[in-house]
């Protein structure tokens, strides 16, 4: 327990130690994109649903926040939550459409739906200003904390603790859910849907809930993104956001809590910190992906747990 508190404390203190705008900025993006990967992992790692629609929900969350604040005059926090909720609600018809599809048909359908979302965001100019995007998206509103007073989130250094807090809270929720009856039921559905039916589980009900939560997380991540960079564009819902989250999760280790985070750190953030040339970065990313899937299909967390198991075994003997 103490180690966890220690690690969390360290995470909060990083901006103080590393007084670099660039690094903290990277960390903010890392946290936001990790949320998308975590949302994908909930769907795929636990419930076995290979969805490529996360980009679409991310974009819906971003636009939801933007439009509610700018056109609707909403205050930022409710708008952010509502953006996530809109994405979650839109996941319901997606669920209804896709749940009877198996395997790659399901994946292709979610891919198509993500592309349709991007196309609609481009076409619905009246609502979204189309391909021009919307600039001047306000950052999250300030809050008054006891003892500290007024805290604003207008710049990287002040935004970071907010994102970190939200990230940790969501991670906690995921942990509580997946390590409970809910997570067990999700995994049962993934393992054997027929058997689940025969013990009274309604798979579609649980899949829909899983999708709802996953879409909400992606949507909230999108809202954070919009409030941070101040600009949204149809490509905010680009399908490659979902694909990248998928790749990072698989590399990090599906079905584990930290797998997607580790994967995102290694494949998304580390190359940027090392300042690897962008084109080379993609090349290495692809090579990494192919290597990992060949050599270690259970991802990095799989290697770590095997190593842990081997160490425990040798200690026990």
């Amino acid at each position: 327990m103490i180690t966890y508190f220690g690690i969390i404390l360290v995470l909060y203190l990083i901006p103080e130690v590393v007084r670099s705008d660039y690094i903290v900025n990277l960390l903010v993006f890392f946290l936001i994109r990790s949320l998308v990967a975590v949302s994908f992992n909930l769907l795929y790692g636990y419930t076995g649903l290979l969805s490529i629609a996360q980009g679409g929900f991310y974009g819906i969350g971003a636009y939801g926040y933007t439009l509610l604040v700018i056109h609707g005059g909403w205050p930022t926090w409710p708008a952010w939550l509502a953006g996530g909720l809109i994405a979650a609600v839109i996941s319901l018809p997606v669920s209804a459409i896709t749940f009877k599809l198996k395997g790659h048909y399901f994946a292709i359908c979610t891919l198509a739906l993500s592309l349709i979302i991007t196309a609609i965001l481009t076409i619905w100019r009246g609502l979204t200003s189309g391909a021009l995007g919307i600039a001047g998206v306000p950052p999250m509103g300030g809050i008054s904390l006891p003892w500290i007073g007024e805290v604003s989130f207008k710049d990287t250094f002040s935004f970071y603790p907010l994102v970190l807090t939200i990230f940790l809270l969501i991670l906690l929720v995921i942990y509580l859910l997946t390590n409970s009856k809910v997570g067990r039921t999700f995994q049962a559905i993934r393992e054997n849907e027929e058997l689940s039916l025969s013990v009274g589980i309604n798979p579609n009900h649980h899949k829909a809930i899983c999708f709802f939560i996953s879409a909400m997380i992606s949507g909230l991540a999108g809202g954070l993104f919009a409030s941070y960079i101040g600009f949204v564009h149809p490509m905010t819902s680009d399908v490659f956001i979902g694909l990248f989250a998928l790749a990072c999760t698989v590399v990090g280790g599906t079905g584990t809590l930290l797998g997607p985070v580790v994967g995102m750190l290694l494949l998304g953030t580390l190359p940027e910190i090392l300042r690897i040339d962008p084109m080379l970065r993609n090349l290495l990313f692809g090579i990494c992906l192919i290597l990992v899937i060949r050599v270690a299909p259970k991802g990095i967390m799989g290697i770590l747990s095997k190593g842990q198991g081997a160490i425990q075994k040798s200690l026990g003997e």
Partner: protein
Amino acid sequence: MFLLEAKGIFKNFGGLQALCDVDIHISEGELVSIVGPNGSGKTTLFNVITGFHKPTKGTIKFKGNGIEGLSPYKIARAGIGRTFQVTALFDNLCVLDNVIVGLHRQTTSRMIDALIRDRHYRKEEQECLEKAKAMLHFVGLENCENDLAGPVPSFSRKRLAIAIALVSDPSLLLLDEPAAGLNVEEIDRLAALVKSIQKAGVTVCVIEHKMKFVMSLSNRVMVLNEGVKIAEGTPAEVSQDSRVITAYLGK
């Protein structure tokens, strides 16, 4: 009133007629066996009863209520448990978790309860844990609680599948070829297990090829051939029935 009563069951798959005007009734406390050559429609009958297939025609009543056409999970919740011809387990979960999942229909805590880990949820999880452990003890698997279900040997797999189906106290348990692939000693142990299940008050219906298993256990036997019921009666009656002998010899 019969516990389970199915009348006039027809099932067509495209052009293939798998079941033709089949009636089956099971009284509480009985152990009924369904036998017949391969492809005679036995598993299809189970699938129709448990909702995995919709009958083309016919009615099915369980405890007096019509269940034909309902989704499998609703029928499971009404109190019918089953195993599958190809043993179905949650391979990547541990043995104990497999059985705990089987208790799903008895749990009432909601997702919110799970999230905040309230008293209702924690009490229920504890009860599930205890019931699951007791069930594993009942089927003789208490030593492999934490093993992953996938690599477990075949007789243990069968017992685990039975445990999953049995743990939620179904009124009717359907076993689809539980003795398939077992050796002589394992079949005897299985027979003893099935007997103790019946003694515990569960009505059992078994599909089986192995006539010895069927004869020693069943109160009643029903014979299917090419989707049609050709005989029904006590094990002794049925084994003397000429139609049955022809059907088996002919295959």
